[in-house]
């Protein structure tokens, strides 16, 4: 397997978390970034409590909750992270933060059974906050779990929300991991971090002494070390075919663990998350706790707004895998972990000189240059297996001719998948 690549961002950011939890209105998009549609359960003009289910993925009965209380409205479309305009349910915030009565009762953590816990994960809409938006309850619904890996690697440059969470809430994280281990009967857990995050390691080490079954595992500062497969491989030395659950391993993002903490502690559905707002084009670069469904434009204007830079690009996600969006009116959904405004140092493409650097960095060992070359030849494409691509963007990063290699691979991937 190819070695991960060190990427320097030279971006220093304060790990304090700033609250921005008073949006004028929140938007619940009826489709997520993976194209899964949600059905709305409310009507125009309904009063919606905080934590009430607004829409549901009917196939797996997975809800989205309102993160504020207020009246519902319909008919507006807004951008989501993948750049598509999606129909939304709008909830106009009345700033009363009214909970449904039933939500106020808290269940004792020690009384949870495994089934109850998984049901709670589903009911509270906990999903992977690392960017996958994969429902967590499906992940945890496996037998014989031997190991829980908490993925706090966050290998993309600029993104620091997990680091901020671990910096501020390390005690709560450890406590939650311990609770999950108890409920799910998992014998051991690892918190996986980059070895350069010394502050976070110090914070974790302060509390970890009381949890003998939780260990800290450090990985190198390289991209894409935060990729699930590499996390499992680096920590346990295990490789799997499709999902880590095959080998009895669960990999959870750190922010997801924190949302489980909030769920267990306050019986609160997933309505808030920490995101990183950063980049040279932002005046005040911060990690911000926001209501899920808030508009990015509102949050950023609350943070003193933009700096003037040449050719700014607005990116939802990190600089490697994110999408550049035409406006900042984008809904902060569960899968957005970073908003980045950077200068577009787009350089002119030169012809490919077939140096093969992309083949040397590709973490899944495909041949991006050959896929690009044979993009019109479907037979050859099938031999080259572009469907293995995880779209990490390293090929575009490393290319000395500044060719957007990944986009070609992505097109090839679609071609092969559709045939």
């Amino acid at each position: 397997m190819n070695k991960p690549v060190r990427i320097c961002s030279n971006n220093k950011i304060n790990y304090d978390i700033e609250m921005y939890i008073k949006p004028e209105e929140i938007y619940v998009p009826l489709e997520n970034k993976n194209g899964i549609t949600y059905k709305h359960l409310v009507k125009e003009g309904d009063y919606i409590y905080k934590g009430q289910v607004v829409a549901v993925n009917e196939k797996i009965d997975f809800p989205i909750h309102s993160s504020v209380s207020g009246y519902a409205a319909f008919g507006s479309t807004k951008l989501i992270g993948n750049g598509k305009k999606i129909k939304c349910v709008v909830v106009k915030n009345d700033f009363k933060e009214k909970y449904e009565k039933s939500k106020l009762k808290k269940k004792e953590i020690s009384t949870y059974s495994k089934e109850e816990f998984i049901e709670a994960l589903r009911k509270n809409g906990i999903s992977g906050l690392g960017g996958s938006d994969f429902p967590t309850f499906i992940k945890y619904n496996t037998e014989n779990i031997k190991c829980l890996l908490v993925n706090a690697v966050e290998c993309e440059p600029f993104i620091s929300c997990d680091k901020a969470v671990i910096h501020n809430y390390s005690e709560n994280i450890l406590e939650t991991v311990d609770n999950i281990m108890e409920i799910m009967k998992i014998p051991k857990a690892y918190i996986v971090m980059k070895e350069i995050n010394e502050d976070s390691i110090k914070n974790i080490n302060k509390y970890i002494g009381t949890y003998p079954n939780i260990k800290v595992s450090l990985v190198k500062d390289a991209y894409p070390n935060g990729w699930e497969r590499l996390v499992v491989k680096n920590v346990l030395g295990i490789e799997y075919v499709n999902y880590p659950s095959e080998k009895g391993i669960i990999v959870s993002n750190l922010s997801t663990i924190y949302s489980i903490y909030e769920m267990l502690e306050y019986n609160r559905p997933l309505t808030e998350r920490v995101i990183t707002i950063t980049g040279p084009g932002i005046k005040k670069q911060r990690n911000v706790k926001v209501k899920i469904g808030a508009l990015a434009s509102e949050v950023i204007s609350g943070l003193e707004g933009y700096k003037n830079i040449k050719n700014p690009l607005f990116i939802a996600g990190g600089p490697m895998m994110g999408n550049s969006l035409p406006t900042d009116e984008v809904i902060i959904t569960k899968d957005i972990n970073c908003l980045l405004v950077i200068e577009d140092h787009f350089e002119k493409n030169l012809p490919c000189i077939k140096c093969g650097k992309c083949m040397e960095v590709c973490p899944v060992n495909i041949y991006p240059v050959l896929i690009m070359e044979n993009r019109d030849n479907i037979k050859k494409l099938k031999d080259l297996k572009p469907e293995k691509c995880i779209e990490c963007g390293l090929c575009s990063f490393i290319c000395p001719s500044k060719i957007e290699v990944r986009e070609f691979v992505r097109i090839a991937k679609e071609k092969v998948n559709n045939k």
Partner: protein
Amino acid sequence: MKKFSTREGNFMKSKNSTSNMMYTVLVVLVPFIIFGTFKNGIFPAVKGYGDLYTVFKPLLYIIIPALVCLLVEYLYYLIKKDKKTIYQLFGEHYAIIPGVFLGLITSINTPEWFLIVGAVIASLSKVLLGGLGKNKLNPALVGALFITVIFSSEIGGYLNPYEDNVIRDLIKIDAISSATPLSNMTAEGYLVTYDNLVAPFGTLWTFFFGKIPGAIGETCSFLCIIALIYLIYAKVIKWRIPVSYLLSVAVISLIICLTKDIGLWFVLFNLLSGGLLFGATFMATDPVTSPMSREGQVIGGIFLGIVTMAIRYLTKLPEGVLISILIYNVVTIFINYLTVKLYSKKTVRITLVVITSILCLLSSFVIGKNIITKEPDDTYKITSKETVGNNTVYEVSGRGYAGNNSIKLKIIFTGNDVTNIEVLKSYETYTGRIYEEEYLDKIIDNQDNLDNLDTISGCTVTSKAIKEIVEKTKQDYNK
């Protein structure tokens, strides 16, 4: 709400760029150019073999083809109605690089206009095959091949007219060196002895520091090794190709050493001569014309080693590097085709690497078959001897460049002296030079002191053979 422009792709780019790679190569070439200027220009001038033009000739030989290549590409794009500025051609199409390389790998006594034609061919072979990134053959090598093949009869080896003397001054031995060490060996019928291959030029250190005849910039192995290490360290070139190339050459010569009972100097001789290190560092690693996958690079490198050694020791062509790299460029197309086919078959790929390695081992027995370690038996023969009055007429035959009995001479003695030499029959390629240089007359003039008579550079073997035949006939006559 604020509007932003959008684009596809990722938004962070590494610092490496094609321009950086190309400029790094150009900067790395500067010491070679300096070395070439010193060896082929300043040194002979200091020793008194040339004038001011000699000093700048090597430099001109690098600048001229570079400018010609730039001009050809400029005109090509102008004709295609896709006009590009000179800066674009320099900074985006790297038009001068083939020219610079061409200058470094041609001989200093190539006539200027051959060089210009070669540069035109080199540049055309690049742009006509699709321009940067699409050419299948290394442009500089195509140009060099054109020069050496088409004009081979007129170039007359790699040796400077003065280099002969320079080397003798340098190492203070009396042996007469002709063309490059390797053509020496081929000329002597694959005679591999230390005295034949290395001693005329000094020691292997002379080879290492490049004080041997050869192209302008490629002889200094010391610089090549430093450049190779630096370029690999800077990740400009793929390390697998040069390493497997050099290793396979080393392994093949080692096996030949062991089977033919030759000293280990032979391994170093093969690595240090014939511009092998220069080719391995700069030519075989040209990104566009070399295999892309790792296994492909290893296979390509081993293949190069086999072909280079085969050309050196199985054919009449002395210098194998140039042609073997061009053959390898063609094979690369096939290797890259296989790379696609065998993407998901790792075992097949590994097997291919193993097979090529075994082939490399086996090929050494074939390659070594022509090599001899002792001088061939003398085929000198007196076919007739008549005495008419004062004159004694000998008809003798002997071994020349082309093989046994390739030279037939009629030598007439009057009294104690040779008075006439006539070439009755000659299968030699360069017999013409013998007449041009009036060599036969020179032999007659110097007949008492033949050891000190210089051979003709460019047809050394023939002239030496004639000299020896006369010497032997004289011995017979004096008996």
